[in-house]
């Protein structure tokens, strides 16, 4: 089984689906000749040609809107936002047109919108956001967020084949930092949670880059047995797996890299409060980015994004509760 970076796994998913299915194509700003701002589609234009690796005008509403049109005609577009932040310019098409189409008129919209998201490298307020909660709140969109190379490939293949609009959150900070064994075949990863590490004293629930923060923070905590649950999918949210971990561990810390207010973790906390209240041995604890834009300067950015030490401290406190 080859070892790949998270980024290579995303590329592999698209390349293999494009080879096997001529309905699949990629579109976005600078994805063709340049190979994408992060080089995710590097070499694609040589293999698949300019029509299936489409450099588009700088028009995010246009990217999402035309992808919708192509999809209802039977194609399977993968639309790349250069940065997840820019989806605000395509929000209306995604939320109002794509998200409501099937519910309203039974017309399925098979689009995948890739959103390179997240901070940690001085991207500043417009290149660092984690906007997944916007789309969790918009009915009709699925939202997934892989943390490993293996899941990056499997979730993307599943997204490409899903007849519904799927928002695929790919964390930029994981692109080259995370590596792993990735099966060679074209496999689908279920839109469900995964136990990243088994434990029994406390569970940390996270997704995307925060899974790695959580694993590192709890790798050696004076012998405590800490489970890490990787949500992988935010819509649908794997409530069963969340409750299973909480019931087993009785203590829970939820980590979001997104701003705290109404983040994915807030929904997870609500689910736990409603369905697992009696299984808890302590308060549901959240670690998230405070409700400010992501600042540019490294000292400021590190001060707001959840760090390993922040998670470790929160876990320690709750273990002692």
């Amino acid at each position, binding site marked *: 089984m080859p070892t790949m970076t998270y980024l290579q796994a995303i590329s592999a998913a698209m390349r293999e689906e494009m080879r096997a299915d001529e309905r699949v194509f990629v579109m976005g700003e600078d994805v063709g000749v340049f190979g994408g701002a992060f080089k995710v589609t590097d070499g694609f234009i040589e293999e698949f040609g300019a029509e299936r690796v489409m450099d588009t005008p700088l028009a995010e509403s246009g990217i999402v*809107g035309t992808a919708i049109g192509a999809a209802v005609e039977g194609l399977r577009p993968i639309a790349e936002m250069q940065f997840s932040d820019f989806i605000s310019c395509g929000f209306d098409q995604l939320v109002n047109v794509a998200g409501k189409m099937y519910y309203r008129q039974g017309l399925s919209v098979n689009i995948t919108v890739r959103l390179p998201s997240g901070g940690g490298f001085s991207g500043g307020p417009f290149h660092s956001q984690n906007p997944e909660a916007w789309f969790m709140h918009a009915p009709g969109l699925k939202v997934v967020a892989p943390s490993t190379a293996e899941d990056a490939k499997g979730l993307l293949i599943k997204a490409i084949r899903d007849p519904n609009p799927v928002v695929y959150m790919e964390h930029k900070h994981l692109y080259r930092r995370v590596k792993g064994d990735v099966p060679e075949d074209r496999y689908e990863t279920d839109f469900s949670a995964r136990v990243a590490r088994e434990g029994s004293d406390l569970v940390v629930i996270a997704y995307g880059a925060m899974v790695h923060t959580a694993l590192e923070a709890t790798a050696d905590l004076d012998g405590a047995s800490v489970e890490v649950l990787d949500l992988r999918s935010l819509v649908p949210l794997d409530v069963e797996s969340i409750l299973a971990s909480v019931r087993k561990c009785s203590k829970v810390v939820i980590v979001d890299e997104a701003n705290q207010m109404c983040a994915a973790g807030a929904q997870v906390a609500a689910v736990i409060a409603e369905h697992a209240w009696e299984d808890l041995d302590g308060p549901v604890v959240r670690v998230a980015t405070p409700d400010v834009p992501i600042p540019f300067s490294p000292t400021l950015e590190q001060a707001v994004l959840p760090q390993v030490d922040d998670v470790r401290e929160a876990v320690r406190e709750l273990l002692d509760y």
Partner: protein
Amino acid sequence: MATEAARTEGNVAEGEREERASVSEHLTLEDRTGLLRAMLAMRGIEERAMMLYRQGKVPGSFYDGYGQEAVSAGPAWAMHGHDRLCILHRDLAAHLIRGVAPARILAQYMGRDGGITRGRDGNVHFGDRTVGCVGMVSMLPDMMLVAAGLAMAFKMRGEQRAALTWFGDGSTSRGDFHEAMNWASVQKLPVIFILENNQYAYSTPIDTQFAVDPVERAAAYGFPGVSVDGNDVEATFEATRQARERAVGGEGPSLIEAVTMRMHGHAAHDDMKYVPAEQIEEWKRKDPIDRQVRRLEPLGVDVDALRAEVKAEIDAATEEALAMPMPDGETATERLFADEPALLEDGETRWSGF
């Protein structure tokens, strides 16, 4: 690139021209009668729906296209069944021409289970995917981009097909208008944009909406824009026929401005007192149905029989729609996601020229 001829011909203010035999040499008498029938059906269904609204059977408000029937009938007639349409809320005739049954339309207005959206959306917010139509959303002109995307699919697959969408004068102020015009031109897409200029966006007149007639902007994007008399169904047909020929010939998009007038309020609740009475009076004389009747009656078309036939059809459809149940509240949370692909299918081909 609007040709002088086209602009002059399209200028309604320059006088009535219905004395002419036919604006398009590509229409048979049967086509011309079919166009009249579609307009009669649209008006009849909308008048019936307004009645149902007043009886409290149509929830929300009601939006119609009275006086604008030619804007949707002509272009829809010019499109092949395998072409695709994204239809605006005052363009009911397009749905009828594609083959949507009047009973389902009335059921749609009443929020019944038998309506096209099964009660999930109201008014003319629908598109029957089984006849190749995508329903609009209230954010305008979002469908310009969707239509461009449909055209993108045709182009990528090397198919001789075209997409068409309507949008109003107000929508030309939004960014999606620009994105779609630019995108379609850059990629030379087989798409037809029909600007339905009915003089008002809700209460806002066009002189508050734009400084330059949007049809002029087409040239700036690099493709033709023509202005036609939007109350002449044969003119809207002919302009669309030419635009479609251009589209499937690989020459790219076209913009057609159909100049018309919104004869009713924005919706049933709007008394339209912001519109000068003389403006309405002036446009009443340009009624698209009257105009087509005046053309066809001398040719021996039995218009009274046609009216009776349409009325009988609407009577039956009303009865059928009223017998349809309301959707079960239990189903409101169902069918949010598709388990299987459900894509667009072909509608009816009506023009004899295909």
